[in-house]
Structure formats: C-alpha cells, structure tokens
C-alpha cells in the first residue's frame, strides 16, 4: 500500500538527537514527522536503560526505514520509506538526518586474528541483551569511552564476568569490573572467541587473556548512507558532510547527533539536536580543526553570527585557542561545545588545543 505524507520537518531516526530535534521543530510550530528503523524510539539511550521522553505531537513511524532521499534545491525534498506492507512517499521542506553512528569495527581498531563468533560491537551487544539473548559468559569489553564503561557496569549487574581493557589507561574503579590497561592486538579462537592478546601500554609485553566474548567500544562513525548520493562534501575528520552553523549540509538538509559527527558523549549528541532550522547557504567563513583537534562542527559559517561550536580533542585536558578571535579557555573534557560570536572581517577561524 502506498501512503503519501507531507510535513514541514521530516526527521530520519528517533534516537537521542532525533528526538531532541523533534522537540525543537515542535517549538517552532512545524508539522513534524519522524521515521525510526527500530521497534520504538530512544535509540542507544533507551538501550542503556535511560528514560527518554518523546514529543507526542510529532508523528512517529516505528519499524519504518527511509531508503531514499531526493534533494530539491528549489523546494520540497522527497523521501521514500518502507515498512511492513507499506511504501511511504514523503514530502518535506526540511529533512533532518538523525540516523546516528555505528561503532568502529574490530578491523578499524586493528584487531587481527581469525573471525570467530563472540566478537560484538558495543551497540550490537546492547541490542542482543535487550532482545533477550545471553551473549557469553566471560566478557572482555575493549574501550575507555562513556559507552565502554556503561556497558561494563551493565553487564556486571546482569551477572556476566566482565573485564574492561582500557586502551588509554583508566584510573577509576568500577563495581564488579576488573580493569586492565593495554591494546588488544589479536583475537584468539577459530570457531568461538577463546581469548585475546593484550599488549601492555608501556613495556609492550603481550599477555593472553582468556575470554569467550569480546565487545568493542572504541568509537564511532557517522551513518550517512542516505546522503551519500547527494552532492555533499565529506569532512574526513568527522566522516560526515561539512555543515554550516545551522548544521545544514545542503539547503534544508540538516544533520544532527551521531550522523553529524562521531560524538562520544551523549550530552553532545543530544545538544547537537537543538536546531533553529535557519538556512544560510552562502559560504562565508571556514572553521578549521587545527593542532590538537580531532574534529570541529560546524566547519563553515554562512554569516558571522553567534553559533555553537562543537569540538573534540585528541588529548585531554587541554587549553583551547581560537587565535583569530583571541579566545583562550581551559576545557576539562575531551569533547564539548562553546558559543562563539565571530567578528565581521574574518575569512577563517582556526581551533587549536594545547596540553
């Protein structure tokens, strides 16, 4: 059955950033439609057991996947979404890509070995556990980001034997989780995982740690399949499209959350969902991620007005500089945002960080 839908804001993805954007859209009085691939809204936040409030006025289509996005520079964009027994033809002035990110794969973090069963990414493991499956007995979680920690604690609370292998050293203690530091270089086992090789951070000595399950939580990549065919420019630092201060990649096509940049912290994923839905396509000022930066978002400004700048640093803690604007501040977290009001005569802002 074909169903035609029209909205002023179409949001693809009802995870933490998409939901935040839906709230923004409703505040502006826009007729809002949200499509979600999964069975219900909330994304990774819900999988971690946190409560998520969904704005009821935004029409939600669960288990509905947007498979095509046709960009129209002069008017309404068109989307095709599929659900069981249904084909949706959707038209909207503004489209928000909130498809989130995916975890880095074992290969991306250079884990060699065979390809036995029992290797999961963090999100995959969470989905399985929420789906009523037991993923193993003796688990090693590899990573030191927010997700690695939450997941380790969650698994321990469910009775799994959990060790966390932190690639950058980790100094706090976690309840019922043994913490090791090192880099996992190889996974052992041909059929099912039977251990990993952990290389020490300082001496580089290698130790075999037996386990039957390896969960990888070493970072993310934006999922931007939907805009791949469109004429967007990709920033290799974020792995997503270049955006302006409205987080617009093309006129009326916005990116938020994990699909905008590989954010590690939930608060930034959500914060990036606050859209004003302005449009400003004239490309005025470049924002450049300089020394010490992993990425910045946005990467360009249409006009020199106040905007929110998201940053991710290679090391923490750091002192952040924007020399062109004489901004110099201490930042305690590796990833965050600040408000910047650029002066009129600049063509370029460089963001740098020093230890």
């Amino acid at each position, binding site marked *: *059955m*074909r169903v035609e839908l029209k909205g002023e804001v179409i949001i693809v993805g009802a995870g933490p950033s998409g939901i935040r954007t839906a709230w923004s859209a409703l505040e502006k009085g826009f007729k809002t439609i949200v499509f979600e*691939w999964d069975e219900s809204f909330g994304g990774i936040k819900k999988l971690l057991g946190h409560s998520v409030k969904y704005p009821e006025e935004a029409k939600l289509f669960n*288990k509905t*996947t947007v*498979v*095509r996005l046709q960009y129209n520079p002069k008017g309404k964009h068109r989307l*095709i979404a*599929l*659900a*069981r*027994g*249904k*084909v949706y*033809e959707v038209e909207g002035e503004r489209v928000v890509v909130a*498809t989130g990110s*995916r*975890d*880095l*794969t*074992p*290969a*991306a973090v*250079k884990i*060699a*070995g*065979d*390809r*036995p*069963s*029992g290797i*999961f*990414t963090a*999100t*995959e493991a969470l*989905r*399985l556990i*929420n*789906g*009523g*499956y*037991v*993923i193993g007995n003796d688990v090693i979680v590899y990573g030191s980001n927010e997700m690695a920690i939450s997941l380790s604690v969650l698994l321990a609370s469910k009775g799994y034997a959990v060790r966390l292998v932190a690639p950058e050293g980790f100094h706090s203690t976690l309840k019922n989780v043994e913490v090791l530091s090192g880099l996992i*270089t*190889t996974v052992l086992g*041909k*059929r*099912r995982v039977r251990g990993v090789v952990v290389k020490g951070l300082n001496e580089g000595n290698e130790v075999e740690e037996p386990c039957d399950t390896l969960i990888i939580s070493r970072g993310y*990549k934006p*999922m931007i*399949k939907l805009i*791949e065919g469109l004429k967007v420019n*990709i920033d*290799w630092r974020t*792995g997503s499209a270049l955006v302006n201060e409205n987080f617009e990649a093309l006129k009326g096509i916005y990116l938020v959350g994990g699909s905008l940049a590989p954010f590690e912290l939930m608060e930034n994923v959500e914060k990036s969902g606050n859209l004003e839905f302005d449009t400003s396509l004239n490309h005025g000022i470049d924002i450049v991620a300089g020394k010490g930066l992993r990425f910045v978002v946005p990467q360009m400004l249409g006009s020199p007005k106040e905007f929110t700048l998201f940053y991710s640093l290679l090391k923490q803690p750091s002192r952040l500089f924007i020399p062109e604007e004489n901004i110099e501040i201490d930042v305690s977290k590796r990833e965050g945002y600040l408000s910047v009001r650029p002066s009129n005569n600049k063509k370029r802002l460089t963001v740098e960080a020093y230890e």
Partner: protein
Amino acid sequence: MSIEPQEKVDVAIIGAGVVGLFIARELSRYELKTMVIEKEPDAGWGATKGNAGIIHAFQLPFNSLKGRLCLEGNKMYDEISKELEVPFKRLGLLLVSINALESLMLPFVYLYFKLKGIEVHLIRNVRKIEPNLNEKASMALYFPTAGVVSVFDLVNALVENCRENGVTFSFNRKVSGIEEKKEGYIIYTDKGSVEASWVINAAGVHADEISRMAGYGGFTIYPRKGTLLILAGKRLYNHLLAEMPLKTDPKTKGGGALLTFDGKMLLGPNLIEKVSDKEDKSSAPGDFDDIIKKYQRLIPALAKVDPLVIYTGLREASNTNDFIINIPKKGFMNVAGIQSPGLTAAPAIARVVVKMLSEKGLILKEKRDFVSQRKKRKKVKELLDDINAIEELVGKEPDYGEIICPCELVSKAEIANAIKEGHNTIDGIKFHTGSCMGECQGSYCLVRILDAFTELGLKEVTKKGEGSWIVRRVEG
C-alpha cells in the same frame, strides 16, 4: 563391516568452491546424476571466500595452464554474468609506474603484452584518470579486460542454477575415505557413504589429502595465506590499481588497490608462506600497517582511511605452482592447485574437465531441458528507483517492506527466504543476502536476523557451524 552405500551417483564432486560449482554446472547440461559434497555448512567457504573477486586480464607465464585458462576464463565472464545474473564490471587494471626505473620499463612491458595478444594501452598521464594517485605517478599500462565480480553472488547463483538443473548438494559432510571398486568408487563420509562412477576432487587446500585417499599421492598443497583489507568511506579511485613490478614473483601478482563489485576499496592480498594449519585463516597484527603502507605508495590519501574488515584466505597453491588437472586413474580426477587466477579460470577449467571426462569414457547426453538462465531472487535494494515496482512487491509480500539491515537495505523477506532455502548459519545468511556486510557489519541487524531464525522455529544458530555459537536465549 560393509555397509551398502546410501546414495549412488554418476559423478561426485568433492568441494563446493567456485571450481567445483562451475564443474557441477557444466555437468548439469547432461543426463547425469551429479552430487556435490562439501564439509562446510554452505558453498564457497574455502579459498573462494578469501578471494578478492578480481577477474584477471592475464596470468604469467602465458604458456602455463593457469596462464592459458585465465585468458579463456576472462572472456567467458560477460556471458556468465548475464546468464547467472551476477554483478560483474570490467573496471580495468592500471599498472602504474611511480619511479623513473618503472617508467623506463613500461614501454617494453607494453610491447611484450601487445606481442602476446593482450589488450593493453599505454597511458601517458595517468593522474588525469586517477587524480588521487601519487604525484610521482606518470605513466601506466591499462588493461581494460580486468574486472571484478561479486563472488558471493556468483556462488549463490551457481548453487541455485545447479540445483535447478538437478545437481544435489550435501553440505556439512566431510569425506573420510575413498575406496576403489570394480566400477567406480565408494566415498566414505561422516554422514554415510556415496557410490560414484566418477569422483572429481575439487577440495581446495585439502585436495592432496583427498587424492591420497584415492591412492594417488602425486602432489602436495602448500597453502599460502593472503590477507585483504576492506576500507570504510568514499572511494579514492575508480580502477583496479597496482604498481608496475620491477621483478615478477612467480608466487604472487602482488595484490593491488582494488575495488569490490559494489565500489568498496579493497587492499591486498599480501603473501604469507609456510602455513602449517590448513584451516588457519588468521591475520596478524602487522598486516594492517603493512598493507596500508604498501598501497599508500599508489594512493597517499589511504593514510586517512579506516579499515572496515580484515579477512584472510588460503591460496591452494601446489608444489608445481600451476593448476593440476589430471585423471591419474580411471574414474578419479584431480582439479587441484587452483591458486590465483582460479576464480577467473574456473569456467574455463570446467570446460576442460568435462572434455577430459568425455574423452575418458563418461557418456555425455545433452539434456533437452537444461536451464542456462538463472532467475535472480528479488532484492528490495535493486528496486528502489522504481517506486511502482516496490509497491507491487511489498503489496504482494509485506515482509519485503520490513528492512532488517539498514546499511545494505536487506528486507525480512530476503532473510526469511534464505533461511528457508537452508542457509542455516549467520555467515550463510550474510553471504546469501548481503546483510551484515555493510558499514555497521551487523551491529544493527544481527539481533533481527536471530529473531527471524526464531520465528521460523530454528533456535540453535551458529556463526559458521559447529562450535561457533553466538548467543543463548534467556529461558522463560
């Protein structure tokens, strides 16, 4: 103790790799009872799976069996891809010179290939065609007939087409012994025995063991490991790329900066010798940097790209370093040592095999109802530009609308059909439907695939057969 064989066939092929499958298809043109016996749960899990999917333009030395069958096989792929509806593109290979010495050699190499009758062009400013090439790259040889095929689609298509033409498949069945009889052979397996008038040994890395079982020990397989990296992100080149080698290595063409049929960047394979364990498909920690560094010489921007998948295959190289296609004794044929360019040569190998069988007395009576055209299963992904076609499909079968794999856009109907066809492992589903093979590598869809198995009443699902359990279900 003697047990009557459970099954009797005219031809038993041991090994459901691409070689065994092409032979089976060739035989299925005739009035014969053909069976393929495979130890793995699905087809193509040996050297075939570790392949890069490249259809080579040539193989040196030209006068070797592999050299001749490579050229012949290459020519056959247009028709094969049409008949079997398998994605195949002649992307062309650029053999690039990066330093002065290589550039100096290039015109001579060009003339050599010309003389040998290979279609080749001399490209003067190769960076015009591939702007991301190293700044030092100037000249290149262009081989337009080199291509890339979807190996998984090819394997699936061959199995389907063979089945349609009456070939039977026996998976999860390991051959343990072969006994010569007055007429033919008895093949003993872990699941009963099979009597066959002809046995064709296409057992890949295990071909020497199978041959010895049949009483012929004339060759040894020395597997050579090769690791490949699939990269994430937008592709940086549009042709198959390799650096002009200053010296040819008889053991490897040296890999390349390659592409998969669907445009993903693929680097490798490298070469590791002296593999003692024929099931050892493990990569080494050093492979990542070695492979990326090697091809950064061609495309410097590869430094900024993340690997998505690393995989390792075993080349089934023999002590002769050439293909071994022989009939050492009546009723028993070896098709062994099919190293690179085995995938390219496979259809030509199959023709040679059938011709040899016929010369040795196998009676070939053409079937009147042979179906050469395989009809591809419907994939939602391939219909997305035609909304009317999707509407019709989803209207008829609602599950085509439910997308399980958001990266590769695989529907629940496609997953369920594959399960119903007997692909009962996660790897089997993956290679059959393309799910779990995209950007997220299954992070999103694995749980949904497991649920689909449960819905169809299959509870014990493994990744790739015995011992590779994935999850247990919470009871109650």
